[in-house]
């Protein structure tokens, strides 16, 4: 213990005078405090300084639930009051915030494409049941194998005042192919464009180097851009400030908090009834349910089957459909496994009781399907493999695997409705025929490169998207395709699919399609499971809203009551 006064200590044999340890003298208190405060100030200033420039992207206007205190006005929003026809507000939840709103780089159907579909128009519009309707293009014809002609509407303006015409179409298509833009746009990769010819201000001819039968489908994804704005603005700004010809403009985007759209007053088409459309990223399912129950959110996708009762009890409406995602288990042929024998694969198709799984886990919304291709396009004579455990055993015995074998299966956990539980149920079913499945949950980002290099486990359980298009759907088994995880080497199929990709004649398309479906059915490179159910919840405030098979949530024709 220390007493007042000087203390003598010894250090290395020398007497050392210690200073008084009373902290009121001999020690400055200012210095440490000053230093500490100085460091803290520097940090705070840096933080505020760097983030201050970000606030410029938000308006200081009225918004749903944001303190817009530091916001500066945004250059691109038009702030006229919407006409008396548009009123009210709807809040839609999404699992993530949009990353980017440049329509050529937007990736996810919801919320990115949903938002794009409000701000932009397309030459061709896809209705909720996946039919094509003229939109910015009034009509189109196939002039010859390599030329498509589109006649355009004359009364369309973009929200920044630019007029829509053939120049816009030409610009948009060419921008999609510009390597500097790095578009992930699914359209332009297929166009094999030769050039875009402007026949007259409202007529455009697209010349291709190879026949592109799916041109209309591709253009239904290509949002039309105002050339001046998109060519004169830096890419970085365009990513956050979309400008289109659609009925809504981007009013405010507070990252990871909400995206607010506001109806325009000068839209060429039907004036939307809802004035404010807000998208909120809410990652946690429990929170989404709470928000629906408390009225904070009006529409939400991806509702779990077990929450339906709670939500219906809270006055919400559940909308559901067998969706457009093909749940299947692919057999990776790169590995040397018993599944190389066709009989084994067929046996597994017979052994999985999809209907029971659908009833038990998916609220009865899923049933066994030959889901390689969208039902409307499928060969009606092909029926899915029925659940027949005896047949499965017989086939396995014939192939010499009566005693079964062990095999690994990968899948991205939690990515689709209850797919963890479904994977376990399937493993269970296969165990009944002596096939022991080792489940290997692997997240999708890790799985990605494995899929591309076709080096996943021998069984891979995925949900592949469907585009309601014969060629697109069947291309999933083309061995050159990145998203085809299985290394299925079937010459007959490969020749057929490559021809289909070049065929423009609808009759020949259908013939080839049916042939390919027959091969795929017989050879069973997949265990065909079910269409992933889409379950949405909607508040009773919202009227005239239809869910879509492409997972987008679009409010163009909807209305809200108060």
């Amino acid at each position, binding site marked *: 213990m220390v007493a007042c006064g000087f203390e003598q200590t010894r250090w290395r044999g020398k007497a050392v005078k210690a200073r008084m*340890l009373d902290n009121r003298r001999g*020690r400055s*208190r200012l*210095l440490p*405090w000053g*230093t*500490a405060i100085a*460091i*803290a100030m520097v*940090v705070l200033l840096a*933080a505020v300084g*760097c*983030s201050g*420039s*970000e*606030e410029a992207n938000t308006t200081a206007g009225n918004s749903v*639930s*944001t303190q817009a205190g530091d916001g500066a006005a945004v250059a691109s929003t038009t702030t006229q009051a919407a006409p008396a026809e548009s009123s009210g507000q709807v809040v839609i939840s999404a699992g*993530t915030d949009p*990353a*980017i709103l*440049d329509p050529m780089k937007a*990736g996810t159907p919801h919320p990115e494409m949903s938002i794009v579909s409000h701000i932009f128009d397309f030459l061709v519009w896809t209705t909720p049941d996946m039919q094509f309707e003229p939109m910015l293009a009034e009509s189109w014809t196939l002039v010859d194998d390599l030329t498509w002609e589109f006649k355009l509407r004359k009364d369309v303006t973009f929200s920044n005042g630019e007029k829509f015409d053939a120049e816009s179409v030409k610009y948009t298509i060419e921008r999609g192919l510009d390597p500097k833009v*790095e578009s*992930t*746009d*699914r359209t332009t*990769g*297929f166009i094999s464009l030769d050039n875009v010819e402007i026949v007259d201000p409202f007529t455009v001819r697209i010349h291709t180097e190879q026949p592109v039968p799916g041109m209309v489908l591709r253009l239904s994804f290509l949002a039309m851009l105002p050339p001046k704005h998109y060519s004169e603005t830096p890419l*970085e700004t365009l*990513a*956050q400030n979309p400008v289109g010809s659609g009925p809504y403009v981007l009013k405010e985007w*507070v*990252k*990871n*908090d*909400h995206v607010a759209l506001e109806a325009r007053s000068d839209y060429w088409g039907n004036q939307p009834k809802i004035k404010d459309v807000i998208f909120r990223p*809410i*990652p*946690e399912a*429990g*929170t989404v349910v*709470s*928000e629906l*129950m*408390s009225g*904070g959110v009006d529409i939400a996708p991806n509702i779990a089957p077990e929450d339906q009762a709670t939500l219906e009890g809270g006055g919400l409406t559940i909308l559901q459909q067998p969706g457009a995602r093909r749940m299947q288990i692919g057999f990776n042929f790169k590995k040397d496994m018993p599944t190389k024998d066709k009989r084994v694969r067929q046996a597994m198709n017979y052994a999985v009781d999809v209907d029971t799984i659908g009833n038990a886990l998916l609220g009865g919304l899923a049933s066994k399907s030959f889901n390689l291709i969208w039902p409307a396009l499928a060969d009606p004579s092909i029926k899915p493999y029925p659940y027949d455990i005896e047949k499965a055993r017989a086939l396995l015995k014939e192939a010499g695997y009566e005693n079964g074998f062990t095999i690994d299966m990968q899948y991205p956990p939690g990515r689709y409705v209850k797919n963890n539980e479904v994977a376990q149920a399937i493993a269970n079913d296969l165990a009944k025929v002596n096939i022991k499945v080792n489940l290997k949950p692997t997240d999708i*980002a*890790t799985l*990605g*490169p494995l*899929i*591309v290099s076709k080096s996943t486990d021998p069984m891979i359980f995925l949900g*592949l*998207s469907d585009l309601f298009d014969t060629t697109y759907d069947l*291309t999933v088994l083309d061995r*050159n*395709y*990145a*998203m085809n995880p299985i290394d299925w080497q079937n010459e007959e199929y490969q020749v057929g699919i490559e021809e289909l990709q070049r065929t423009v004649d609808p009759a020949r398309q259908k013939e080839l399609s049916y042939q390919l479906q027959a091969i795929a059915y017989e050879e069973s490179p997949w265990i065909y499971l079910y269409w992933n159910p889409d379950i949405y919840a909607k508040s009773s405030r919202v009227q005239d809203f239809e869910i879509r098979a492409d997972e987008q949530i679009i409010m163009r024709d909807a209305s809200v009551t108060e």
Partner: protein
Amino acid sequence: MGRYVVNRLGQALLAVACVTALVFFVARVLGDPSTLMAPPEATVQQVLEIKHRMGLDRPLLVQFLEFARGALQGDLGQSYRQGRPALSVVMSTLPKTLELALTAQLLALVIGIPLGILAAARRKTWIDSATTGAAVVGQSVPMFWLGLMLIVVFGVKLRLLPVSGTGGVSHLILPAVTLATYSMARTARLVRSGMLDQMGQEYMLTARAKGLSEHRVLISHGLRNALIPVVTIISLDFAVLLGGAVVTETVFAWPGLGRLVVNAINTRDFPVIQASVIVIAVVFVLINLIVDVLYTVIDPRVRLT
């Protein structure tokens, strides 16, 4: 003092550099985002082209050197997903993250310290047991459960507070309480044990003998010393609150840094992952430095060497 600070800043720089390098290499070992960025119908060739365009097929060391060179000039790369500078992406989440972290930290202190003192002063009474029990519960309760429970009670049933998102003060209450609970509980226990420690010391007896009121004895003398470990904890805690409040941010859809980092990892947005780690590391070392410097004021026995 000056030399100490400079020394520490040097060490801090080294620490941040090492952490950055580690994260750089580890993130890339786990795969790359080219498949995630490619449309579903891309060919293998197209995916490899995307990888090439992003520069991700070059040797790791080459990629690192390029990154380091840019970093030294303040350029941490462009976010793959958002197409804007990764540093901007991270910094733009800071205001909201700080809002939540500071509020939670404040709550933890304002409630935790008095509770700890109370428990120590009323040792062996029911107040002590109740407080300690509550603290144990507070430390054990999983945050996502607590958050969801608070949402159900206050947001859905009672409709007193908003369920999620940002906005006014009302939006801040539930997430801050959820986040603060663990910290609050631990602070209370720390203060309690610290106080009990001090209360047994001779100088406390001296203070009482001098005739000081119980209040002065406890607060002006005992608490001062009991707070030293608490200050240490705060400095560690705060950094965790900034970058690690993922669960709370997810449950309450709060646009914070924790959620940003996890999303970036899930989508393999390397520049954002790196920028986040750098920012969190820098804040962490700076806070530690500030606290170490402040120690000399709080505890005169401490010398900075």
